[in-house]
């Protein structure tokens, strides 16, 4: 007898698109349920003041830093872009915002009991995780898109390389996928949103600081290349802000994000037996 949750995600509704299927409970995924969950998540975010406050703070920080870099770098736009998307405020937002967006996603549902209600509709664990991730990733993307008008404004004087902007946003989408997936995983491990946020930030910091391990090795050592390959700081400094989209980096980010989401599904499955 399989030790699997009863009946998670078997037998599709007519006309539904099946993205993945297996005999394993909680693995079969249809589009309908993740979309419904993501839609509800975004609705909840925007009917409460949370989204507005986060957007306001996000734009304020970006506006202030953009102004600062413009003045400090005499309006040299390529340098401004590199600083704007590679400085301390940028990494602060990159690492802190996704766990704050995702901290309530699963933890709050479980704490409030709405998770049980959600599962009673036949929503599989993978579908729930997919919906939560989709909502968080969309909101994260929206946050970064809100910065675009600043760049459009700066381009009135000329000098913005839109190819670089495209690669920057590709980097933001990819790293955003990774950080929000880690945030969803953290949220699936606890019923306390605050603990989920702390776990998410800690995990994101660990990913961020991986490049620091290079100090343990002599210059030119092979290991340093490994750490560079894994380091988001390196990817933004050498690829995305230079107009380069490295497929290996894309695979690394998306692969790690999928792995984190898979672990989140497993965390939910485990809940049924405890």
């Amino acid at each position, binding site marked *: 007898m399989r030790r699997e949750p009863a*009946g*998670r*995600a078997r*037998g599709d509704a007519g006309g539904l698109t099946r993205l993945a299927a297996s005999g394993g*409970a909680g693995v079969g995924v249809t589009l309908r349920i993740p979309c*419904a969950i993501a839609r509800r998540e975004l609705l909840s975010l925007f009917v409460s003041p949370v989204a507005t406050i986060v957007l306001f703070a996000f734009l304020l920080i970006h506006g202030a830093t953009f102004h600062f870099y413009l003045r400090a770098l005499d309006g040299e736009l390529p340098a401004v872009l590199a600083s704007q998307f590679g400085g301390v405020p940028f990494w602060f937002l990159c690492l802190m915002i996704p766990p704050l967006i995702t901290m309530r996603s699963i933890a709050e549902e479980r704490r409030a009991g709405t998770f049980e209600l959600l599962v009673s*509709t*036949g929503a599989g664990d993978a579908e729930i995780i997919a919906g939560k991730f989709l909502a968080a990733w969309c909101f994260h993307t929206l946050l970064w898109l809100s910065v675009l008008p600043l760049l459009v404004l700066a381009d009135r004087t000329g000098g913005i390389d839109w190819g670089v902007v495209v690669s920057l946003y590709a980097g933001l989408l990819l790293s955003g996928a990774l950080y929000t997936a880690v945030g969803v995983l953290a949220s699936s491990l606890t019923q306390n949103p605050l603990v989920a946020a702390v776990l998410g930030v800690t995990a994101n910091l660990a990913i961020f600081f991986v490049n620091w391990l290079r100090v343990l090795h002599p210059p030119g050592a092979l290991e340093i290349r490994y750490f560079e390959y894994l380091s988001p700081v390196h990817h933004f400094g050498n690829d995305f802000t230079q107009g380069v989209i490295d497929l290996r980096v894309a695979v690394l980010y998306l692969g790690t994000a999928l792995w984190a989401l898979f672990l989140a599904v497993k965390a939910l499955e485990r809940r049924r037996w405890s």
Partner: protein
Amino acid sequence: MPAGAGDEAPYGGVRPRLGGNGDPAVIEVVDLNRTFGRRRVLREVSFCVPPGRIAGFLGPNGAGKTTTMRILTTILPPDPGKGRVVVAGLDVREHGREVCRRVGYLPESMPIHPELRVDEHLRYRARLKGLPARRASRRIGDVLELCGLRDVSRRSLGVLSRGYRQRVGLADALLAEPDVLILDEPTSGLDPGQAAEVRQLIAGLREKTTVLLSSHVLGEVEQVCDLIVIIAGGVVCARESRDGWTDRLARAGRLELLLRGAPGDVSRRLRALPGVQEVISAGERHTISADRDVREAVFRLAVEQGWKLLELAPRPATLESLFLEVVSAGAPGRSDSPGTMGRPGSAA
């Protein structure tokens, strides 16, 4: 309709059929076990609910009612093993999603997303349940009307009273026109008027929908349910049809007499009447326990003996007393051995 009472053979391996008309039961639970870690919360639980019937699921706190209901709604899986849980003809292990589509579930305390409005919540639930947009709109209108939520449909769930939230939960459970409704304490937190409305609503579903409802309000169960399943310590202690428990209550009733001028051996003479099992006397007041109706015999005896019969009052047993009796007799200890009352066929 016998709800398992009188079945001598255990259910193991046999598909129980309870409908008097030969219909298969809509809810079939056969030798269901469930453990959390080392704690065994359900022990070979077996019961059935025939189509269109309303079953009351009774038991003290921690008896395993909610766990059973969660398994029936596929929220929790049963332990692996020979046990079987079939809802609407579908095994919950094999056809969980299809089972979900056929079951409406109201949890004990209706959890909500406080920021959503009532209509938004129902629309969200309709999407999750896979209702097409047009049918969803029609059904939302129907259940808002049915559950008396029309006036609050644009209000946020967070500002609604507990009673209204419970109604929203019921509306949600009814949304997809399920074959089976599983209601965990549906009137919990409602005022008497609201509770009566909900009971009326549930009673109105008889014949159309099969309902399993848990409740601590035994009067409610008595009013609404066609059969009862009593569970204690994870073991089914009794399964009774309405006829069965009515008969049992009648048999368990007592007769109170107020006799004046009766001699000292009145207890002995009353005990000599056919069917009388016990007589408790306190001065002029005598209480008779009998396995049949002895009112006429008592009256005749009083007339023959010249006693002044001032009062002859039947005191029927209540479902509460029956519940307490069954639970105290059937609840197993902490050991892993199932209580004898828990075996199907040995109940009541």
